């Protein structure tokens, strides 16, 4: 019975992927990609990975989808509609097919190789959980055992935001609010937005003992910000770019500060003392959640700020 569910899930997943890759219209490809993300979220639950399922549902299906849809909506129709060249390129089709088949053959051979599970890293992870300050193994890995990785990951996110900011064309970020004169939407948002913030904070709090954590909470927060922005409300970045940059580095700097504080006690970087581990992890996660939400939101806003039509006219 369980195998049947798995096979059905995989069949739907692969059909979504095929439709997404083969559909001629870009909009269809994006919609099937979003559905693929939702399917993957269910599959991660079947793989006993509820943390990844939460992240995939919020990020893979939500944020990535809205970024793609946003880009698609800004392109003129002749660049997103049926795409006649695709079927003519015979040589390219065969080349792609051969490359794809050989990738699959090599990967199948690799997956078939029996792994030698002599080192089970899972055992020490569970055993050391008491010393980590949290009860959930994945949060312990992300913010204690391998916290340096997570620190650098936040740095990567900040860097992406900085590059996106440097690519904008206007001196000042223009927020052309798509003001929708829709009282029903605004009334709904007054209900939904506090709910979204609550869900985000709950995910953050739950991360200490059960699936959840900074990444999931941050992406729900980003979704709330994007909804707020799309409904036409004014955001503080309207007036001050400083807010934007401050929000980006807030999480990274709190993370670094806690890390450097542990150096003064004579320990290594980010080696929290046992009695403060839980508190340090909570402060870091809180700051990182706000920053991840803010960075994902500003990536959305910055990509909206590239005007596609008038640049060439200005150059000529």
């Amino acid at each position: 019975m369980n195998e049947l569910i798995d096979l059905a899930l995989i069949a739907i997943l692969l059909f979504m992927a095929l439709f997404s890759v083969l559909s001629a219209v870009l909009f269809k490809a994006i919609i099937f990609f979003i559905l693929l993300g939702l399917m993957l979220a269910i599959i991660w639950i079947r793989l006993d990975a509820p943390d990844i399922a939460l992240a995939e549902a919020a990020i893979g299906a939500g944020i990535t989808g809205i970024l793609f849809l946003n880009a698609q909506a800004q392109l003129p129709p002749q660049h997103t509609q049926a795409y006649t060249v695709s079927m003519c390129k015979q040589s390219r089709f065969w080349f792609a097919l051969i490359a794809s088949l050989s990738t699959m053959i090599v990967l199948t051979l690799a997956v078939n190789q029996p792994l030698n599970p002599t080192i089970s890293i899972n055992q020490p992870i569970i055993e050391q959980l008491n010393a980590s300050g949290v009860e959930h193994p994945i949060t312990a890995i992300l913010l204690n055992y391998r916290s340096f990785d997570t620190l650098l990951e936040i740095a990567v996110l900040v860097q992406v935001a900085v590059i996106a900011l440097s690519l904008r064309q206007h001196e000042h970020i223009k927020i052309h609010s798509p003001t929708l004169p829709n009282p029903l939407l605004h009334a709904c948002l007054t209900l939904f937005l506090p709910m979204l913030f609550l869900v985000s904070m709950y995910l953050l709090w739950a991360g200490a003992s059960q699936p959840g954590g900074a990444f999931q909470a941050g992406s729900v927060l980003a979704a709330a910000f994007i909804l707020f922005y799309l409904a036409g409300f004014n955001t503080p970045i309207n007036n001050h770019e400083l807010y934007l940059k401050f929000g980006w580095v807030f999480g990274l700097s709190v993370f670094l500060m806690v890390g450097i504080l542990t150096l003064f006690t004579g320990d290594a970087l980010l080696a929290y003392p046992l009695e403060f581990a839980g508190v340090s992890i909570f402060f870091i996660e809180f700051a990182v959640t706000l920053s991840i939400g803010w960075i994902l939101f500003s990536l959305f806003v910055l990509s909206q700020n590239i005007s596609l039509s008038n640049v060439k006219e200005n150059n000529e």
Partner: protein
Amino acid sequence: MNSYLIFSYAGVALCGIGVFGFIFHSHLIKRLIAFNILSNGVFLILVGLAQNAQKQPDHLPQALVLTGIVVAVAATALALVLIKQWYAISQQTTLPEDQEHQ
């Protein structure tokens, strides 16, 4: 064959579909979608294979995939900004190398 291994094979198939789309399409956004499908396939193989060897949930690859998903969305956002910038400069959604072969 337990369900961890089945999903590793599903990841293999996703990788194949991703590689196909990445080479076949010259439209940059479609390439980006194929690239995202490929990365999802890699995540499935990574977790499925590790858990198949241990016959239980393995937390370390799960944490790695979690960071991977966040970095992937950041990379996608950056790629979309670059694609839009490229369109603003050239009014094209394909690279010049691909246009010559059409």
